[in-house]
């Protein structure tokens, strides 16, 4: 599993992943943060529901889609963390039903 080589110190922020608070460093991407978690996957696929993790880290593979602050299918690798941000791993197909 990935780990951070330095302590973010004063640049530390708190992000909630599936409701659980975790420490992140201002400026890093949500995908980098997800890869450091004990469970590194970020979503399950719409058809086979198999787990997927961030892969290309540069916005082209769309494997790292997560829900961020209520907005679904956001690319975690292109989104910098922010203090208080809510990240939810996406499970299968998104739904627009009430």
């Amino acid at each position, binding site marked *: 599993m990935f780990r951070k080589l330095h302590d973010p110190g004063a640049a530390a922020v708190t992000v909630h992943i599936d409701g659980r608070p975790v420490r992140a460093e201002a400026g890093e991407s949500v995908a980098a943060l997800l890869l450091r978690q004990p469970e590194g996957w970020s979503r399950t696929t*719409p*058809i086979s529901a198999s787990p997927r993790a961030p892969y290309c880290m540069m916005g082209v593979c769309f494997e790292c889609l997560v829900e961020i602050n209520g*907005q679904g*299918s956001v690319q975690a690798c292109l989104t910098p963390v922010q203090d208080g941000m809510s990240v939810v791993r996406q499970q299968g*197909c*998104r*739904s*627009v*039903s*009430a």
Partner: protein
Amino acid sequence: MRPDIVVIGGGMVGAAIAYGLARRRQQVLLLDGEDGDFRAARANFGLVWLQGKGLGMPAYQGLTRRSIALWRGFADELQSETGGDLCYEQKGGLAFCLGEDAFEKRRLDLMRLHNQRGEGEADWEMIDRAALERLLPKARLGADVSGASLGRHDGHANPLKLLAGLHGGLLRLGGSIRHRARVERIEMAGSDFRLVLDGAALTAPRIVIAAGLGSARLGRQVGLDVPVHPERGQILVTERLAPFLPLPASGLRQTAEGTVMIGATKDEVGLDVSTTTEAAASLSAKTVRTIPALATARLVRQWAGLRVMTPDSYPVYAQSESHPGAFVALCHSGVTLAAFHAEVLAEAVADGTLPESFSPFHQRRFDVPKAA
């Protein structure tokens, strides 16, 4: 092997005719164009649709009805031929109405069509908002939605799988396809047609011109003067979503894979397949008025295609009088009419004559002097 018939145009119309001819044991050669050609068949929305079609031309309503009646059998046959799934569903289709006036206008339009048909029971109904909500329990409707018309015969299919299936079916039945085969000119060689391609020539006793917007240039050379012009349609598609729309609607359908297709514009811009932000905005706005929650769905693609339009928008089917054996087939509803093309039209072309029922679709209907 020397073909009995060459079909010029490997899009939805030409491929369906060629497949139908091959099923009738004709030796068929299908000439397909270049990747950069205008290919309506690769830009389709995928409705197999009856309701609302044919105002002012009852023969077109009849043609559409006939094709839809054939569609299930045609799809089953093609699927067993190729093993592919066309994702064809015929559970009815909707046209959403926004506002009470639109609801009433829709009712009147469909009633006029029903009266022009002049026979049979209505196979559509207007359903109010409450009934619509019961029909679509997973879709929360926008405040402006007053109801919808529900056409019982309407449905949808995957148009790309249909096109691939027609090509695959043709090959399995012993036909051939030549890609990047642009016909430069058509000459006569005795009673045969000689098609001059870039660096090659082919002869055949019969030809079918189904080259979409390219048909006018080819038809002229064999006495078939077909007026045709492009009309651009733009379509949006969303990410895959959990199923919420069990019936396709005019301009809004959820595919078997879960994506939502949103269409389509009607732009008079000539031979231009670029997409515009204005179209993306107006299509999105219309959709969000119907189902507000779609505002949170991600759009993954927008594309444009050129409809193959005649002056009255209806198809042209004809055989040349000056060059018997040369046929032309053009329309912009290649998906809905695919079953008719593969069954009835292919049968007529194989027989060598278009029966009287085709006469309303001859291009001579455009040869009337314009009123002052």
